[in-house]
């Protein structure tokens, strides 16, 4: 019920101004009425006001309207000469209200005096309309007081404010839910790690102990292990719900993002599902974070994969011409962007699965709704996609018929700006050009190698993994020196990163080297010369920045060229100095 209160507050501003105006007219009118015959000419200026206004005299069981403005007449479909309203619940005005309680309050105020206000919704031509109605009825007169009682009624169309608050509420709901989920996931993970930690300790002690029945105990502890393992899976899913930090928005060509992601999408779908892209040659400029777009595609693909357990195909269609956003979807936009002539480009993803029935379609975007009853899905996928499309200023729609596949339409707002592409070695330019890059990733920590490799692989780079310096050199040898890039940690057993870099440079001079480390001073002794164009990641970096650095290193053969937008330490013989912005 919270949003109703918000509507009251929101509409109160409009209503307050109008009430003030109404009260002003009310008293001015009747002040004038003492001197001359009351006419409605004084108030005719109210015909130009967009809100509805009625001024009346209460006469027995009737309200005699002294003035009704045009807007009011239109809202209630009143004829020009209709001025009489019977004061019961069947009254035109009263029937406008939605609930019996509202009607009772209204008639009560009519009979006994008072002020009332309501939020009323009505079905309009294009959808639901929201009105804010206020009514003032003079109090009952004292005995002997023959003055007539008067009333005024005002009407404001607050549909816009309502939509705006509603969509803000949706957004806030999702944001609040995301924050909540992240908090829960984090705390839960802490608890899990204690459970599994002590469990492991117990297992170890039991393994060493060997007494009768210890095997049974061990099997019980294994069950605890697997249960806490499932718990970890769940927290990981919850964490992806709140994953996105504020990422950089740039102007991309949407088709380039999709095409650049093509390999990754095919891998994600697996062998049984074909992925086709239509409209790959069109240019559609969208201001967005490429990461968000890829995330949305992954979420939709997950749904498609689930719907086609025995394989099928997915068609991504970008060929449609840009057009204005359909009216039925306008409410997904922020209020100030609704009903403009902004063009949107449509991207449809269609699978050949079992489709969604009307029930499922209606709930598909709700968080935690999953048509799977087996608890295997968090039900967050489409609601995240919905939230992400909103963040991009676009819209999403499900067009689906049961047993005929599911089509999900994404509407992206077109941007008139230049592609961020053209200025620097672009977001897309570099994503594309990373397709044929070969890189060695070396670190003695396996997890880090896996993480970095997966980010690079997603960007299209072919990765050779190494867990120490010697393995890295082996890869270099096997690939016959065709390695473009070495990403390595500095301190590694057997052959440290710096020596490795020197050796790689001497065997393969064109290979660029990026050190993953902070604080060069930590790892270097004085006089330990670095290769001339080595590059460090010194400030906290995320994977977008990592890919930026890589693309930059590979596209600039001139090492004096400063990378922009992030900080790196760049070496020049044995000196280390900071460059970049």
């Amino acid at each position: 019920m919270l949003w109703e209160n918000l509507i009251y507050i929101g509409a109160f501003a409009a209503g307050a101004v109008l009430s003030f105006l109404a009260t002003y007219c009310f008293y001015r009118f009747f002040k004038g009425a003492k001197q001359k015959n009351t006419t409605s000419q004084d108030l005719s200026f109210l015909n130009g006001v967009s809100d509805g206004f009625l001024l009346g005299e209460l006469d027995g069981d009737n309200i005699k309207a002294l003035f009704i403005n045009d807007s009011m007449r239109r809202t209630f479909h009143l004829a020009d000469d209709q001025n009489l309203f019977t004061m019961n619940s069947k009254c035109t005005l009263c029937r406008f209200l939605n609930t019996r309680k509202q009607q009772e309050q209204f008639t009560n105020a009519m009979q006994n005096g008072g002020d009332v206000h309501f939020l009323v919704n009505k079905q309009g031509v294009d959808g639901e309309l929201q009105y804010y109605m206020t009514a003032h009825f003079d109090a009952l007169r004292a005995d002997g007081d023959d003055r007539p009682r008067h009333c005024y009624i005002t009407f404001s169309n607050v549909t816009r404010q309502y939509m705006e608050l509603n969509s803000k509420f949706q957004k806030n709901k999702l944001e609040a839910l995301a924050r909540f989920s992240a908090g829960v996931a984090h705390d839960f993970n802490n608890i899990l790690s204690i459970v599994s930690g002590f469990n492991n300790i117990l297992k170890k002690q039991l393994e060493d102990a060997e007494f009768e029945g210890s095997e049974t105990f061990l099997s019980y502890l294994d069950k605890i292990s697997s249960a806490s393992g499932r718990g970890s899976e769940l927290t990981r899913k919850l964490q992806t719900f709140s994953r996105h930090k504020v990422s950089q928005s740039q102007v991309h060509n949407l088709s380039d993002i999709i095409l650049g992601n093509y390999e990754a999408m095919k891998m994600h779908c697996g062998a049984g599902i074909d992925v086709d892209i239509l409209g790959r040659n069109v240019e559609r400029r969208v201001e967005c974070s490429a990461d968000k777009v890829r995330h949305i595609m992954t979420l939709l693909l997950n749904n498609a994969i689930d719907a086609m357990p025995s394989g099928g195909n997915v068609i991504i269609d970008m060929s449609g011409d840009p057009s204005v956003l359909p009216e039925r979807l306008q409410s997904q936009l922020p209020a100030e962007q609704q009903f403009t002539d902004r063009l949107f480009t449509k991207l449809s993803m269609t699978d050949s699965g079992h489709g969604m029935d009307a029930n499922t379609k209606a709930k598909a975007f709700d968080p935690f709704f999953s048509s799977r009853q087996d608890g295997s899905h968090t039900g967050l996928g489409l609601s995240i996609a919905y939230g992400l499309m909103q963040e991009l200023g676009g819209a999403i729609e499900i067009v689906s018929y049961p047993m005929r596949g599911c089509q999900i339409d994404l509407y992206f707002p077109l941007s008139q700006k230049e592609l961020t592409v053209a200025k620097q070695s672009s977001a897309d330019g570099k994503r594309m050009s990373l397709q044929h890059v070969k890189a060695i990733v070396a670190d003695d920590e396996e997890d880090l190698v896996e993480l970095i490799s997966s980010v690079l692989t997603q960007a299209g780079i072919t990765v050779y993994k190494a867990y120490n310096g010697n393995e890295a050199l082996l890869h270099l040898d096997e690939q016959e020196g065709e390695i473009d890039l070495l990403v390595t940690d500095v301190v590694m057993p057997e052959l440290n990163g710096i020596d490795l870099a020197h050796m790689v440079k001497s065997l393969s001079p064109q290979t660029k080297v990026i050190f993953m480390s902070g604080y060069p001073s930590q790892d270097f002794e004085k006089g330990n010369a670095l290769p001339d164009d080595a590059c460090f990641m010194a400030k906290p970096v995320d994977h977008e920045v990592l890919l930026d650095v890589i693309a930059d290193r590979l596209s600039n053969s001139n090492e004096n060229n400063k990378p922009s937008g992030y900080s790196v330490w760049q070496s020049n013989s044995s000196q280390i100095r900071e460059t970049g912005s």
Partner: protein
Amino acid sequence: MADNGALTDLKILVVEDQAEARSMIKAMLAQLGVNQVFEAIDGREALSFLDMAPDMIDLVMCDWNMPKMSGVELLRQLRTVDPRMPFLMVTGRADLDSVMEAKSSGVTGYISKPFSATQLEAKLRIILQRIRKAA
């Protein structure tokens, strides 16, 4: 399994605000033969301990997420006075961004929750190697 002798000599400072988690780490380390374990409940305690007796500690093992001072914050402050103290960060999230942030702040190694004694042992050995390399 390789010689535990190397590990048993380790003197570790565990920085963790939650008592249960602290005792779990201590128990796990004991199982690995590491018994010289000191505890700090927050970053400030850790920093003053290290300030008083830096030679008494071979390795700091610190939780990423702590209320008053975060693990990264502690790391950065430590690095201004001691660029070499080995630092093992215990992270809640194993995504690349958290890891990169830890790495680029000067962490020597990281391990993500939940972890097993075997995983912890592997990490400690890696760090030992790195300590020896630097020495």
